[in-house]
């Protein structure tokens, strides 16, 4: 049976939540950490739970850096979640000196001391009207680090937690969310379903 969607395993993550969400959308799922699968998948999900340094190291160990970076640069259908979004950045304060995939020219920084860290819970998301996939709504977040601005060449959505931060970015059929769409109720499920229909520009 041919799988519709491939999920990248980079270690222990809440893969079951992502698998369940894709199942509810009627999709068959395969979990892999094989570079050829990552390069060849029609649709790919890069979930992220863990911390920046170890997961980056795992991606390099598995030989996934180039296939991941290529498909995101080309705008091929890819959904990055939580740490998955931060992996697309150049670096993170979480593990200084470690190079991310560098597709977004950003550095993930820690939320200020004035707010709860980690950010755990529901926050309002405001999407730019130019977004093809993202809409306004409430999303579930679980993060201590975030990107501060939507990079040039991307469109996206922001939220507020001690100041505006990047809730998600999109370009072509690439969607990278700081929040967890698979845990964001009906709003998140419809976002996943729009991504499942998205075609590269």
């Amino acid at each position, binding site marked *: 049976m041919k799988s519709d969607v491939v999920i990248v395993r980079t270690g*222990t*993550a*809440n*893969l*079951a*939540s992502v698998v*369940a*969400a894709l*199942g*509810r959308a009627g999709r068959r799922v395969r979990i892999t950490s094989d570079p050829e699968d990552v390069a060849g998948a029609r649709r790919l999900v890069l979930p992220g*739970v*863990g*911390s920046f340094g170890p997961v980056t190291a795992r991606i390099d160990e598995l030989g996934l850096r180039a296939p991941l970076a290529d498909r995101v640069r080309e705008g091929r259908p890819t959904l990055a979640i939580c740490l998955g979004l931060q992996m697309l950045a150049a670096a993170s304060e979480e593990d200084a000196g470690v190079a991310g995939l560098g597709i977004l020219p950003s550095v993930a920084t820690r939320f200020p*001391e004035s707010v*709860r*860290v*980690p*950010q*755990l*819970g*529901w*926050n*309002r998301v405001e999407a730019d009207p130019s977004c093809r996939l993202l809409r306004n709504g*409430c999303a*579930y977040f*679980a*993060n*201590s680090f975030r990107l501060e601005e939507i990079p040039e060449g991307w469109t996206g959505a922001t939220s*507020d*937690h001690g100041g505006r931060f990047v809730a998600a970015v999109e370009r072509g059929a690439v969607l990278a969310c700081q929040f*967890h769409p*698979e*845990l*964001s*109720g*009906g709003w*998140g*499920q419809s976002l996943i379903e729009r991504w499942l229909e998205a075609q590269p520009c």
Partner: protein
Amino acid sequence: MLIPRVIPCLDVANGRVVKGVKFQGLRESGDPVELAAAYAAQDADELVVLDVAATPEARGNHLEVVRAVRQVLPLPLTVGGGVRTAADAEALLEAGADKVAVNTAAVRRPELLTELATRFGCQCTVLALDAARRNGGWEVVIRSGRHRTGDDAVAWAAHAAEIGAGEILLTSWDRDGTGIGYDLELIAAIRAAVAVPIIASGGASGPEHMVAALGAGADAVLAATIFHDGHTTVPDLKARLAALGAEVRL
């Protein structure tokens, strides 16, 4: 700004949801998967599933329940009960938990919190803290309330947050199952000691109690009895919270 969470809690023993008063006199009140599906349909903000039989009877984790709940729940799922090692936590995460709560094992071996935070992140690592009043303060109770440690609950919360806990599920042993309201002084004392989110638990029977807990510093309010009884639904409760001036996700 984060929106306060309303969280139904399923206390599970032997695959069935039970509820107790002060952790005793458990009686059956339903199938965990049916209840999880109902709370998903009601659009709760999160679900907590605690295996209350795991610690006393040294039972393994109820992975099957977690797997089945995950299938029906597009919401955050926190699971606890009987987690002693990082491997126990990993099995729950693989089965479908998003966060893992630890209680007794973390009191006995606090490094467990650090191990979980290092492997899975602090956003995955929840300290379940059961606190009982004693001499004007609170002491930590473990083994489902059957053992009083003598340790100061506020000091333990502060230490736990420092070494890896990313959230505190704070249960008042004195108020649990009573319906007379959360222990607001306990919530305020823990709030003053930690920067991580706090889930208030134990004693709620209505929206006034929840608004008071949020005012005392809680980020989320948990309840079991009022939901399982079928007397109130999550949307009803949220509408009443909103009428009282609380921000909720509608």
